[in-house]
């Protein structure tokens, strides 16, 4: 590991990943690709959790616990999201997010 490496490098990486995920979420029409973008954004948050855990005392591992909780939440979210996508495909015949206009007022 590089000595005296500033954590700003990884904050920058997390920022770039978040922006890519955000742009992809806005742009995409496929519901699966929206989920992919959300996973990228969650991962950028996880990088911050893990890197800032090193700032503290190394015996204080709450940052790592945060990453584990976040990954479990992402797994639950992906399972429910893909279930909803399959359910919508069964009723609508498409997973294009721009076609879901049932709740439109």
């Amino acid at each position, binding site marked *: 590991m*590089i000595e005296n490496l500033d954590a700003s490098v990884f904050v920058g990486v997390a920022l770039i990943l978040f922006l890519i995920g955000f742009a992809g979420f806005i742009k995409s*029409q496929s519901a*699966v690709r929206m989920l992919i973008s959300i996973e990228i954004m969650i991962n950028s948050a996880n990088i911050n959790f893990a890197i800032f855990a090193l700032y503290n005392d190394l015996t204080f591992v709450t940052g790592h616990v945060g*990453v584990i909780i976040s990954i479990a939440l992402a797994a639950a979210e992906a399972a429910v999201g893909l279930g909803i996508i399959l359910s919508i495909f069964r009723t609508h015949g498409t997973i294009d997010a721009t076609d879901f206009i049932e709740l439109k007022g």
Partner: protein
Amino acid sequence: MALIGTELFHALEYLVLFLLIAYTTGSAFLAVTVKSVYHAVLWLIFTLLGVAMIFLLYAESALLLVIQMIVYAGGITILMLFAISLSGKKAMFEEQKGLKLLDWRLSFAGGFILLVIAFYILSQVNLAFWQQQTTTIKPSEEIELIGNLARTLFTVHGGTLLVLGFLLLAAMLGSVYLVKKEVEDI
């Protein structure tokens, strides 16, 4: 270290860091831009592996690498591939409709402006807050990290773990309920 000089070793370390960052962000970019959704999931796997390597090399946690690879790169992405396969041929390619306002060039121009603003805010935060603390990552020490993590997880965060278990159970039951076929009344 003995085989190569110290300066060359440090240069190689920076090269590895640069390659890892380029690999992770490049895969993420391709995951949201490539036309086929199948290929997008494959690029997402590479992104997740890059993040796992960041966990191992720079957050010094092999456990997070293992969890990331098993749960994310192995589990969620396969779930996505199955969802695409079950959603018919049309789901594999994203149709490009004429959304002129959200054109790629515009959204990435907006993203770039956001990036500049965020870097400015980050540098200000660095000046104001981080200078009071040690802004470099502490070197690794020989401590029992995983044992300590397990102890913390089951004592301090025990309640969170319990709630997480219930949440995963609810998510599993909910997805089964959503996907199961309607049983016709006999």
